[in-house]
Every structure is written in C-alpha cells, then in structure tokens.
C-alpha cells in the first residue's frame, strides 16, 4: 500500500497527541517566565527565573518533593513485595479460589475519591472508625491516623488501591510458569523456598518491571486521595508536588509560580523514569 495512505491513517492520532503535548507544555514554559497572578491581571512582565526561585524557596517545596518520593517508593515496595507473596499464595487451587480472586481485585476498581472517603471516615476516624474500635477493644488508645500519620495514611490508601493490580499481574504471569521445571526441581530435592527464590522470582522479573513502570506513572501524580483526605496537611506533612502545584495555581491564583512548579514536576518525572528504567533493566532482565 502507498506510504501516503498509511501516513494519512496515522495523521489524526499523531497530530492530536503532538498538539496535546506541545501546546500546554510550551504555555507552561512561557507562563513560568512571566509574572502571572489571576488576582492581578495585566501585569504580565517578564521575570526570568524568579518564579522558579519562589517555588524552590517555598516552605512547602522540600516536604513536597520528599513526600512525593517517599510515597512513590513506599507504595512500590508494599505492592510489589506483598503482591508477589499473595500471588504465590493464591496460585495453587484451593476452595473458593475464584471468589478470593474477585475479592482481592476489587479495590482496584474503587475510584480514588471514594477510596479516600472510606478510609478517612469509616476506617481511620479516631472516635467512630473501625481501627479506633479495634484498638480500644484491645485496650489501647485509639490513634488519630490522619493527623498523627498523615503521609502514612495516604500511603496505606494508595497501596490498598494498587496492591490488587500487582497481584492480578503476577497471578497472570505465574500461570505461564513452567510446571515441569518446578517438578524437576522438586525431584532433585529443592525446598519450596528454593523453588520460589530461584524459579518463581526470576520468572516474575519482567512482570515486576512492568508493574513498577505502570505504577510509577500513576503514583507520581497521586492527587485525589490527598485532596479528599488530608488536604495536604497538617502543615505540609502530606503535601506532594501535585498537590503543592494545585495549591499555588487554583487556591493562590499564582499561575507563574505554579507553572514553574509544573515544569519541576515534569523534570522530576523524567529523572525518576530515567533511573527507574535503568535500575529495572539492569537488575531484572538478566
């Protein structure tokens, strides 16, 4: 078929994505170099690096960057480790396996805003929550999760949402594992742990890499859970970059500084992606 027709078929997608990428990004770059506050229209003079300076010296900046990274790493570790363990556990047939699978998968389909509301109110509320009731029944003081461990609470909510995804991917991958190889290893006297360590884990290398990649895309941009549950507080204790920029742009109306922040988020995503792809590629695809 003619080259021109294949190009024509691709053109709509390519053009749309190009516009979707370039227009907003170049606007962000432009806004980041001018004074632009929605409360003071008409004073949009060029200010050079000032917006970046403001953003980086904002008291919320360092907490936001570290919270973003802590959130990313904690959720990745929790979901991958527990995900591998759980998928190995439910791999072999047992009574009601399919129901267990359906139950395990469900949190992944709960929308982030609902997720945050269930946990914030019905689980973590220090007076009427389930956790408070459990710790009181056991004779402990109830914990005010959202004020005492705000970031930890957010990590819990987000992990709860993404653990099912990891389990589902790993379970799918385990089904393609070579059973003859496992049986041969068993014949040779390998223990369950050895089989898990030297056959199952290497078999899961690629799925683990995939899970890390996909989750990273979504985890760097966690927003709704924080918006609904802690509002970034107390102080900046659970503010991540996404929330800090939202705060600058739509609550303080400072578009210039928010744009500088947005560019910083893009930069951070690229750095993380770069290291992640290298680390994942190095350690796992052997």
């Amino acid at each position, binding site marked *: *078929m003619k*080259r021109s*027709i294949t190009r024509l*078929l*691709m053109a*709509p*997608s*390519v053009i*749309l994505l190009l516009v979707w*990428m370039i227009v*907003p*990004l170049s*606007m*962000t770059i432009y806004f980041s170099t001018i004074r632009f506050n929605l409360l003071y229209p008409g004073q949009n003079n060029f200010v050079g690096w000032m917006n970046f300076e403001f953003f980086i010296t904002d008291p919320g900046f360092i907490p936001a960057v570290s919270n973003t990274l802590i959130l990313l790493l904690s959720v990745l570790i929790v979901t991958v480790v527990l995900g591998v363990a*759980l998928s190995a*556990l439910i791999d072999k047939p*047992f*009574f009601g396996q399919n129901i*267990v699978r359906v*139950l*395990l*998968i*469900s*949190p*992944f*389909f*709960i*929308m*982030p*805003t609902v997720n945050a509301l*269930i*946990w*914030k*109110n019905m689980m973590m509320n220090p007076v*009427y929550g*389930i956790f*408070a*009731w459990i710790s009181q029944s056991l004779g402990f003081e109830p914990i005010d999760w959202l004020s005492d461990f705000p970031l930890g609470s957010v990590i819990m909510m987000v992990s709860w949402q993404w653990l*099912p*995804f990891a389990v*589902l*991917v790993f379970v*799918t*991958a385990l089904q393609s594992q070579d059973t003859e190889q496992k049986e041969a290893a068993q014949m040779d006297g390998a223990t369950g742990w050895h089989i898990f360590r030297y056959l199952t884990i290497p078999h899961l290398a*690629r799925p683990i890499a*995939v899970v890390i990649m*996909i989750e990273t895309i979504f985890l*760097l*941009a966690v*927003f*709704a859970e924080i*918006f609904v549950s802690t509002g970034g507080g107390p102080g900046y204790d659970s503010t991540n970059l*996404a929330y800090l920029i*939202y705060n600058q742009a*739509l609550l303080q109306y400072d578009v210039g500084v*928010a*744009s500088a922040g947005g560019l910083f988020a*893009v930069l951070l*995503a690229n750095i993380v*992606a770069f290291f992640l792809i290298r680390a994942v590629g190095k350690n796992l695809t052997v």
Partner: protein
Amino acid sequence: MTLNQQRKLKTFITGLFSWLIALVLFFPIFWMFITSFKTELQAIAIPPTLFFEPTLDNFAVVQERSNYLHHAMNSVITSFGSTLIALIIAVPAAYSMAFFPGKKTKDILLWMLSTKMLPAVGVLVPIYILSRDFGLLDSRTGLVIIFTLMNLPIIIWMLFSYFKDLPKEILEAARMDGATPWDEIVKVVLPLSVGGIASTGLLSIVLCWNEAFWSLNLTASEAAPLTAMIASYSSPEGLFWAKLSAASTLACAPIVVFGWFCQKQLVQGLTFGAVK
C-alpha cells in the same frame, strides 16, 4: 501423617490464609456497602453493628441532595463518549502501524507512550486557562476531549498489539480480491479483532470512570462526574456516613461489577500485553 495428608493440610492452610487476607482487603468495600443500608445512628455506633434492619432511605437522600442521576449521566457520557471517539481515531493508526510498519513505527509508538509520562499537574494551568477561554470549563465536552487525549496512547498501543497478532494472509487475500483499505478495516480487521477492541474499550472506560485529577479541577456542579460529586461529601458538615456510603456504593458499583467480569483483559491491556 502420610505425604498425601500432609499435602492436603498444606492446601487447607494456604486456602485459609488466602481467604483471610482477601476478606481483610475487601472489608472496606463490604463495610461501605452495608453502611449504606444503615441509619446515621447505626453507621457511627460503637461497637459497629453488623445486624440491623436495612433501610433504603439513604439512596433517596443522595439522589435528592446531590442529584446522583445527573452526575452518573455525566460519568456515563464522558467515559463512553471519549472511549468511542478515541477508538475511532486509534483504529486507523494502529491498523497502519501494525500492518504497514515503517522504520519509524517503533519510535512513534514509544513517543506516544512517553506522552503518558508527562505528569498532568505539569500542564494543569494551561489546560485550565484554555478550557476557560474556550468556554469548556465545567462542560462535558471539555472533559470528553481531555479523556480522549489522555487515553489515546494506551488505546493505540493495545490495538496495535492485537492487530499485530492477526494472520497477515487473510489481509493479503482480501487485497488480491481488490479490497480498498477502508474495506480491509471494516470487513476484515474489525470483525477479526472484536475481542481486542472490546477489552481496549473496557479498560478505557474504567480509567475514565475513575479519573479524578481533571474532573476535580475542571468541573463544578454542571459537568461533574461521580468522582467529583463524591468529593463534595468530604466537607465536614457533620457525620453523614450512611449517606456517604450510599453515594459511594452507587458511584462504584457499576464499575466494580464491570471489572469483575473482565479483570483479565483489563490487566493485559494495562500491561500492554507484556504479561500474558
């Protein structure tokens, strides 16, 4: 104990553990579900009540207070609409890349995926301002446009990997019989890949239904889908957990049930077919 008995015991214990963990992880959803049938007093009772006379009042109040049906309609229109449009745009592109790959096809695919790496918050301000200037703030049209573009790369990837697996001979035979590219797509490729297109569409619908960043930032009362409507229940105007649960149950039930039926396809989609 014989070896057989030992094995049986092991299976039993693994099963027990699996059930325990699954029930713990499912508990918040279960609790949300049953709380939606309680009165407000039962909802905050300590110790928590498990047995009670169920009431449907909460659901009526949710509809009345926040016009559930209006927001559900927004969710349906934005997720189905954007999925349909994205599929229409993506099918020709995926078809051309899968059946007539050029030197740059791989680069183009990777570039498309890389647009997903761009954090949404980096372009929040321009998108907000553009939407405002085009009058698309708090409109379904605006949300449909954003959702379409947001999921287009994933949809193209998924369709590409399905199309690539189709037998090339059939297409060649069709071409010999004088089929135009249009005929080829409509009469050969689409019928052969109904399953793939369906699961691509499902994944896109789930992602749109649960999307919260753009819907929270770009909509208010008029175009707010369920994700944004639910967020309005976070304001601390009292403990309305039963109503909150009813609203949440209504918002999640369709997509959770939907997800149960096509979990496997959804995962294959989200991992771009890398895990089979």
